């Protein structure tokens, strides 16, 4: 019978989807390789999660009731084969019924609106404590610049923030700017996303309660390599964070053994776009490379940071990120070896 | 419609529906108003936000004469509408031509103003936010004046060749509605650009 099959098909589809979803590693405490919004570790994401469960309960109840009535209707009132040809009673309307199913939704809306508004103000207008770490995130096509103004250094693509806890919070406040087009900072386990709009600074905060690596990516189309503008947020214990900051504030390692590579770097236009602290390279168009080897990945998460990948990236960025704004500088094999060796010393 | 003698309560009274020309023109006006609103919003939003270049205070002269001409043309076209209603085609033609003349004076005045702004004050559409929003908004209005004048001119030619008669007064009124709209938009543009924006 059609109505039966309709209902069965619907439920079967839902079950399949649920099973696939639940079997994925989307739940649990701490960092997940799947950046699920249902595995929050930081207050904004946690509060959003709690509100979302409440909303799911209400909308779920509405669905069950209305879809239930609809299912009942298509079974109970379908035309039977042995039916006579008389038309059923014609009912044109009922004011009481219209009133009822207007008033009830209005009440539901009032409840939902008030709970929602409360959380909007709690997250957006949360006062910044003096213990907060301040980071300025600048979106570029197709990489992330992270400036630590109070600590006095600039990092790229991999954001390190200190672990927070509920008794002594040490949140991180991010100022969000853009150097070119619109981007969006989204690490689902930490907070909702906020856009980086040129000429319109935004801000957000996170206070992660579990250490580890949290992944995300740019969530507003920004051009050909939008898909590879990945985010890696390292939530460090206080000791780890102090060590990382201390390393980042040092100038670039000066190893005389790679002087040839350094010369290539400084004469083949690399320094026009990149900065290495303590040298003449002060370019700002591309990521700061002073501590490039302290990062796990290259090109905002596009590939692992190995010597081979680095060499191939410099030789031809399009082989990893076709359309990336870093040009292939047509270096010879020797030059490539040398400059890669030089960069490999910049820990 | 049907052969079955069915008599519901009461027969159909006179069946009058609004004229489709009038409804169509009102719809067009609503749509055009939305376009103008967006340009006005952009203008207002960007008041005072230019980073460099000439400002309205420095270069804009309030076009009083132009405005009087354009608004008077609404009066003359109204007089033309009334004339054709009473079948005074000659009077209609005179007031209609006056409307066109006043519209042309307005356009000429705009051209003179723009010449001064571009060549003496160095303000173009690409100079700064003020230049972009000014030329776009005033230019959009000017385009509508041109379109309106073209339609009015066409009707004037038909009048002079004797093709316009009293039974066309409804259509004349629909066209006049467009002209009144153009004038009303000027009131708003004038207020925003030359009064609020300065």
């Amino acid at each position, binding site marked *: 019978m*059609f109505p039966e*099959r*309709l209902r069965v*098909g*619907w439920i079967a589809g839902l079950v399949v989807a649920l099973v*696939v*979803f639940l079997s*994925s590693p*989307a739940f649990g405490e701490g960092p997940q390789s799947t*950046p699920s919004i249902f595995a929050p570790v930081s207050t904004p*994401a946690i509060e*959003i999660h709690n509100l*979302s469960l409440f909303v799911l309960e209400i*909308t779920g109840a509405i669905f069950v009731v209305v879809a239930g*009535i*609809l299912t009942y*209707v298509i079974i109970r009132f379908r035309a039977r084969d042995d039916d006579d040809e008389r*038309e059923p009673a*014609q*009912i*044109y*309307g009922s004011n009481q019924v219209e009133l009822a*199913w207007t008033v009830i939704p209005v009440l539901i*809306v009032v409840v939902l609106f008030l709970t929602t508004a409360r959380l909007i103000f709690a997250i*957006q207008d949360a006062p910044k404590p003096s213990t907060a770490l301040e980071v300025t995130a600048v979106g570029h096509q197709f990489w992330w610049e992270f400036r630590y103004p109070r600590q006095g250094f600039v990092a790229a693509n991999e954001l390190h923030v200190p672990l927070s806890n509920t008794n002594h919070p040490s949140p991180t406040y991010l100022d969000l700017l853009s150097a070119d*087009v*619109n981007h969006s900072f*989204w690490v689902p386990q930490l*907070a*909702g*996303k906020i856009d980086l*709009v040129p*000429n319109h600074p935004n801000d957000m905060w996170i206070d992660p309660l579990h250490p580890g690596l949290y992944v995300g*990516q740019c*969530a507003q*189309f920004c051009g*050909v390599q939008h*898909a590879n503008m990945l985010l890696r947020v390292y939530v460090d214990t206080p000791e780890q964070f102090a060590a990382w900051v201390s390393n980042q504030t040092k100038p670039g390692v000066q190893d005389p053994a790679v002087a040839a590579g350094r010369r290539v770097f400084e004469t083949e236009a690399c320094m026009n776009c990149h900065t290495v602290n303590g040298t003449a390279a002060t370019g700002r168009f591309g990521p700061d490379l002073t501590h490039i080897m302290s990062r796990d990945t290259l090109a905002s998460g596009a590939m692992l940071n190995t010597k081979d990948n680095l060499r191939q990236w410099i030789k031809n960025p399009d082989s990893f990120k076709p359309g990336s704004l870093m040009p292939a500088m047509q270096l010879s094999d020797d030059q490539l070896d040398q400059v890669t060796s030089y960069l490999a010393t910049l820990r | *419609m*049907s*052969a079955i003698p069915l008599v*519901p309560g009461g027969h*159909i009274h006179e069946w009058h*529906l*609004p004229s*489709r020309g009038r*409804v169509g023109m009102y*719809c*067009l006006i609503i749509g055009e108003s*939305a*376009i103008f*609103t*967006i*340009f006005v919003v952009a203008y207002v939003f*960007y008041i005072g936000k*230019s980073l460099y270049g000439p400002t309205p205070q420095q270069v804009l002269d309030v076009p009083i004469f132009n405005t009087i001409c354009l608004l008077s043309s609404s009066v003359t076209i109204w007089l033309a509408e009334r004339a054709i209603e009473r079948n005074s085609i000659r009077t209609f033609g005179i007031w209609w031509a006056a409307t066109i003349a006043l519209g042309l004076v307005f356009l000429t005045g705009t051209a003179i103003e723009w010449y001064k702004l571009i060549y003496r004050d160095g303000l173009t*559409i690409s100079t*700064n936010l003020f230049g972009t929003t000014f030329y*776009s908004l005033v230019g*959009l209005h000017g385009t509508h004046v041109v379109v309106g004048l073209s339609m009015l001119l066409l009707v004037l030619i038909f009048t002079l060749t004797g093709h316009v008669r009293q039974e066309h007064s409804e259509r004349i009124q629909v066209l006049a509605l467009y002209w009144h709209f153009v004038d009303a938009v000027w009131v708003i543009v004038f207020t925003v650009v030359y009064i609020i924006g300065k």
Partner: protein
Amino acid sequence: MADRTLPIDGSLDLTPPREREGLLETLHSWVITVDHKKLGIMYMTLAIFFLLVAGAEVICIRIQLAWPNNHFLSPQVFNRFFTMHGTTMVFLVGIPLVFGFANYIVPLQIGARDMAFPRLNAFSFWMTAFGALLLYFSFIGGAGLYGMGNAPDVTWWAYAPLTARAFSPGNATDYWALALIVTGFGTLGGAVNVIATVISMRCKGMTLMRMPLFAWLMLVDSGLLLVTITPLTAAQIMLVIDRYLGGRFFDTQAGGSAMLWFHFFWIFGHPEVYVLVFPAFAIASEVIPVFSRKAIFGYPAMVAASVGIGFVSLGVWAHHMFTVGMTSAGNAFFVLSTMLVGIPTGIKIFNWLATMWGGKIRFRTPMLFCTAFLFQFLAAGLTGIMLAVAPWNWQLHNSYFVIAHFHYILVGAIVFNTFAGIYYWLPKATGRMMSEKLGKWHFWLFLIGFHITFDTMHFVGFEGMPRWIYTYPADRGWNHLNLVISIGGIIQAVAVLIFAYNLISSLFRGEIAGNDPWDAWTLEWSASSPPPDYNFATDPVVHSRRPLWDLKHPEDPDWKYE
């Protein structure tokens, strides 16, 4: 099916027999036509053609996304495909469907001989067709450097400043802006025409409150279009001024604002989605009563709800902008307005349900699609409420959850009811029924494919997958879900091909329909199938909302109860 041919003068086809026309003459008559029926068919043909084209684009997209790090499409081509998929579906399928249905059916339903402005009608269609040609010409506009003369690749939102010359060199973005300005004029003309027709051309006795709900919804839809498409035209003119005349509207270096584009685009973009869904409401309001054998429940409430939706939908646009950095008060306002628009929408669902309650429901193909529509539109409305909760929106925005939500409406409501409408009214237009058997195959396959794809898509959004990405890392846990989504897409494609075959073969082999194959009650079913050029030999006179019900049930006519 029953064909209750009624003794109505208007249903006689008095056209004198014509000599058989040659192919050239037939084509010529279609090109120069100003007849609303022909233009309606042309709009529908355009819409179905581009449905297939944009469907092919998305099948390529789904093949690329079925596995991580796939190389089926390059990033450049992928970005063009999803931009063209969205742009095509909204402007070359959605809006032509509005005017296709409105043009064909509204004059017949209100007892008129044609639309108010037949030549404007033809002009509007050809502007739409030319704009479509211009947009698709971009694919072959010129090879060369990336960005030079190629298809637009900036998403269908074309956010500034990505669309500035600096970031989008070449002509791709220009094709987008100019093609849509051209179709925009066609849309404006069409909207003016529908409003003038409904207001000024109703037959005697048909007060506004006796008009079929279909006509009401097309009236409100067109009114909405007047103030919806025009902001987009304005913004696109500004974009063209920026790109060609050095304007600074969206030049952030000169103090311009990207936010301005966001507001202007969404002031268009949100009401636009209501514009697109109103035909689905219109079709449901005709099909559900006829196949339930009952009058629509709560006609005045349905009218009020439709008008209410039209107005409130103008005040919710920034719920697409919860993440751009508006103030908390601004965000809260748009949460409230968005939730409020859900109320009249829900009222409509309840009224359709109440229409079916106590009826004798015949599950022919149109009704199958409308029933699925009810489940799916309910679910989509509820995911819409979820998205209206701004903090949750900060997670779900620009993720695959949003794609799932709006495809639940665009496909689950609009495409499903478009199919219902075609199965229902094609017999009127061609005189032949479509095959019920193929219709059922079409329905069940499409339903299964739809749910496999779009139910699953909600979950991959929960797991953090953003939109507009041509590939994804293999270790994010999205692999299986993406493969499932892609498989559902293939199933939907097969179903649509069955539909296309059904439609075309019915033109040659369909059962003869007669005037009134569905035993319906509105005026179009009193004309022959297909109607003569002049629709009705004598102007109809009506006394109730269901003039044919009155004729078929003289002992119990509607006008006693209205």
